[in-house]
Structure formats: C-alpha cells, structure tokens
C-alpha cells in the first residue's frame, strides 16, 4: 500500500488557506495511487500560534474544514494536525486519523516542549494517553513531534500492539554540522529514534515533518519512513517542501516479528510493577 507524506509549509493562522493546500495535495496523492496521506503537526494552522491557538481551534466532527476532509477520507485516509477545542474548554495540539468518512482516532500531544525557543505548555493543555487503533495501516499509533523523543511513548504504543507508528512533526532545525551533511544537526536526532523504534518494535515508523519558515525558524524537513527491520524505506529533502511516497506492507511487520521476537518477549507487567514503585516513591 502506498502512503504519501506531505512535507509542507502552512500559512500561520489561516485555516482556510491551509485547507486548500491540503485538498490540493490529497488530490495529488490520489492521482499517485496512495491510500493514506500524512500531514505535519498543526498542518491546518501553522506552528508558532501563541494567542492564535484559541482563534484557530476546531471542534472535530462533521463541520468546518473537517467536513471536506471527512468527505475526501472516503477515497484516501488522511492524517492531519490541528488545534482541538475540547468539550472541557481546553485546547490541545492534536492529530486526527480520518478514513472511510469517519474520525478513527484523535491523539492529543502529551509532551508539550516548553523550554528555550518552545512555549507550547503556555498555550496548550497536554493529552494524557497513547492509544492504538485499527486503520488501513494495521494497528496504528499516533504521536506528535516531541512525543516521539520520549522512550515511554514508543513503548506504550508497542504494548498497544502498534504495527505502524505515525509521527506528525513541526521540528525546527538547529545546530550546525561541520561535515557537509546538508542538514541541521537536530535532524539526526529524529532519524536515530526512527531507526531505533522501528527496529525494536518491529513496526513501520512514518515521520512527517514540515518545511518553511516561521519568525525566522527554519523547519528541518527530512520526513522519513523506516521499515520494521529498522531500515530506511524513504526519505524526503531537508529544509524544503517535498512530497514523499513509500510502500507499506503489513507482511513486513510479520516477517520482522518472526526474525526478532522483541514484541513477543516483552513483559509489560514487569514495566508496570517497576513504574508503580517509581511512581509511589516519586518526589519532585
């Protein structure tokens, strides 16, 4: 099955313009025969929203931009990033998996980077869950950007039986590379985790980052797909728009799990016991 990764540069705070961009790329993916298209983190709004977070928030359902995306999801599954206005009155940095005219799953970003150049917890409430769900990509788990860099997120999706892990990202590049690697130093960090997680969970890792500039930050691009044996299956350009296609075949997951029984031999009950002990004794 063909999956498309749209490495785009959304317009900051302009949901309707971004919806048009999404629709154009969905049409392109359909023409290429893709069955799934993944967009980056906050693809419908842009990243550095600050006070625009509240103003661009959407209530997921058959309304607003979701109406058009849900209609298109009858022809191709769509993974999209947006600001969720939750019933609770809170706002989340969220991702939705749409397929067959329905919302299959919404993930709310758990780890909100708030240090240095990042200020997400100032504007968003954190999510508190990593759930897997069935999709055209098999048992699937979603993460948003920084979620991916925490070992616990990948482990929790593994215990949920994930066969494909989809990561929506808006990672700004930073740090020089002395060697001519044609990328920012931080791109390596994402690739390291992609390689590691795909191999040790025997799952596909689909990482869709964005491109373009916001307030001087350059988003690093470099979207990728790692296969369940930890090998790079496809790779987009660094720090520019791109459109990546990759083949995903569930049989590769099964083959990898026969070769390397990491998932079979895992012991979540041990993790639970040790975590409970750490939690009980935890003091800040």
């Amino acid at each position, binding site marked *: 099955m063909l999956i498309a990764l749209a490495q785009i540069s959304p317009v900051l705070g302009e949901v309707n313009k971004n919806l048009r961009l999404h629709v154009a790329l969905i049409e392109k993916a359909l023409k290429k025969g893709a069955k799934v298209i993944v967009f980056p983190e906050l693809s419908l709004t842009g990243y550095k929203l600050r006070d625009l977070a509240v103003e661009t928030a959407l209530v997921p359902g058959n309304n607003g931009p979701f109406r058009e995306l849900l209609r298109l999801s009858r022809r191709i599954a769509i993974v999209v990033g947006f600001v969720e206005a939750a019933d609770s009155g809170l706002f989340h940095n969220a991702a939705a998996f749409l397929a067959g005219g329905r919302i299959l799953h919404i993930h709310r970003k758990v780890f909100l980077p708030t240090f240095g150049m990042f200020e997400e917890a100032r504007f968003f409430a954190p999510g508190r869950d990593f759930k897997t769900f069935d999709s055209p990509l098999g048992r699937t788990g979603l993460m948003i950007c920084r979620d991916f860099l925490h070992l616990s997120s990948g482990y929790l999706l593994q215990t949920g039986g994930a066969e494909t892990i989809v990561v929506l990202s808006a990672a700004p*590049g930073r740090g020089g590379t002395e060697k001519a690697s044609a990328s920012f130093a931080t791109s390596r960090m994402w690739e390291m985790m992609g390689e590691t997680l795909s191999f040790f969970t025997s799952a596909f890792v689909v990482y869709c980052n964005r491109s373009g500039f916001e307030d001087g930050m350059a988003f690093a691009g470099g979207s990728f797909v790692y296969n369940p044996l930890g090998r790079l299956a496809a790779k987009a350009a660094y720090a520019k728009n791109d459109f990546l296609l990759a083949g995903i075949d569930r049989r590769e997951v099964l083959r990898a799990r026969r070769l390397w029984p990491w998932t079979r031999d895992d012991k979540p009950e041990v993790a639970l016991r040790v975590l409970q002990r750490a939690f009980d004794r935890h003091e800040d």
Partner: protein
Amino acid sequence: MKIDCAFVERVLCAFIREELGKAGFRRGVLGLSGGLDSAVSAALSAKALGPKNILGLILPYGRSYAADVEDARDVARRLKIRSRVLDIAPMVDAYFRAVPTKARTLRGNKMARERMSILYDFSAREKALIIGTSNKTELLIGYGTIHGDMACALNPLGDLYKTQVRQLAAHLRLPSKILSKKPTAGLWPGQTDEGEIGLSYDELDRILYRLVDLRHSKAEVVSAGFARAKVERIVAQIRKSQFKRCLPPIAKISSRTIGHDFLYPYDWGR
C-alpha cells in the same frame, strides 16, 4: 564553529525568498559599505531574489571613504545587482551646523541613522524590504547603532558569528580584497572594530560561542584558557547592550498588553 556553507547558503536564500514573499515583496534593498557583512548579505539576496531585484545603496560621508565606495561598487558589479551612490554629508552637516559636536560616536551614530532613514525611504520607493547586515558577534556585544545599521526588515546574518560570515564569504567566492579587509564600523576614518573592541574577532567569537551557544559559565570559559578580564568584559558588554536586542518595555496597565500577554507571531497570517 565551522559551518556547512553550502547548506547554510541554501537555508538563508530560502529564508530571504520566503520571508519577503510571504510579506508580499519580491525586491530587497540594503546598504553596501564595501565591507564583508554587507557583501555577503547582498550575495545571498542576489541569489535568493535575482540580482535585478536587489538595490545596493552606497552611502558614504563625503569623500573620506573613496576606497570603500570603490569596493562596494565592485561588489555590486560582480553580483550584477543595481547600485546607487548617495553622499550623506549634506544632510549630516546641516544637522551638525545646528547642534555642533566633535564627539566621534555622536557623529558616527547620526551617520548610521541617516543611512537608515535613506534605506527606509528607498524601501518604500522600490516596494522592497530592507535586508539586514548585522552579524551575531556585533548583535551580542551591542556593537551597532540602535535604529541605525541594526534596523532592517529581516536579517539573514544575525545568527552567524563574524568568523562564520567570513567562511560563507569565501564559499560565495567574494573578492579576496573584501575577505582580507579590516572590519570597520566606519564611524570615523581609520576606525577598526578589533582596535575598538580590543580583541580579535577570532578570539571574541570563540569566547562568545562558549558563553552563548554552549551555555558555558564565565568560570568554564576562563578555565578553557581565555583571559578572565576579556571574558568578563564580554559578559558585561552583552548585558549592557540587551536594550538593543529588544523592543522597549511597555508599562502594563490593562489586563492584556502588547508585549506582555498580547502574543502573536511576527509571521501572523503569513
């Protein structure tokens, strides 16, 4: 501190093209001094937007900088950008006839702001944005005139130390004359940055890189082999010039105040 020049060039050209484009512009204007920073900024802008879309304004005070004017013209010719020379002496002299001073810094700052005023006028005439030329070294130690040479619409060089700008200049094949020229703010004839700062850019950048990029403490930088007096002076300069890197504070009265809790990105709607 070595940079991947080909990649940095690509990112900075995209930055210039996209930031300008998002704001609805396709032309850039910048001051050309005949020095390294403005030559690099002009070269990147010419690559990003096409040489015909760049105007280099050469703004000498009288005839005391004839060699620099020639170097600036040479850069414009090589880059195939448009250029124009305007002598700022009549405007500056008219002002100082009214309020005379011999203080070199006062006179130099006035000249820097006269150039800024001309750049903004031309940015409107040309429907162009001003592309900045201040590097990270001078921004950090405050070696620039606020609302003068620091003023711009976007700055491609502000995160590159002077020594990194020099690497990029070599990569961009700028004339060796520009590369080997003694850096000067041009506030008065014979002035050199390194003479005035009291440190070579090489040493200054290595200290700044440790303090700023690597977040090392003063003590750590000193124990890495740099003179304590130099390190302390640099730290003091960074602190003293913070006002040049921020918008002025607004007295908070209401429940929502610009700069405090009215928080929108620069690229709002772009």
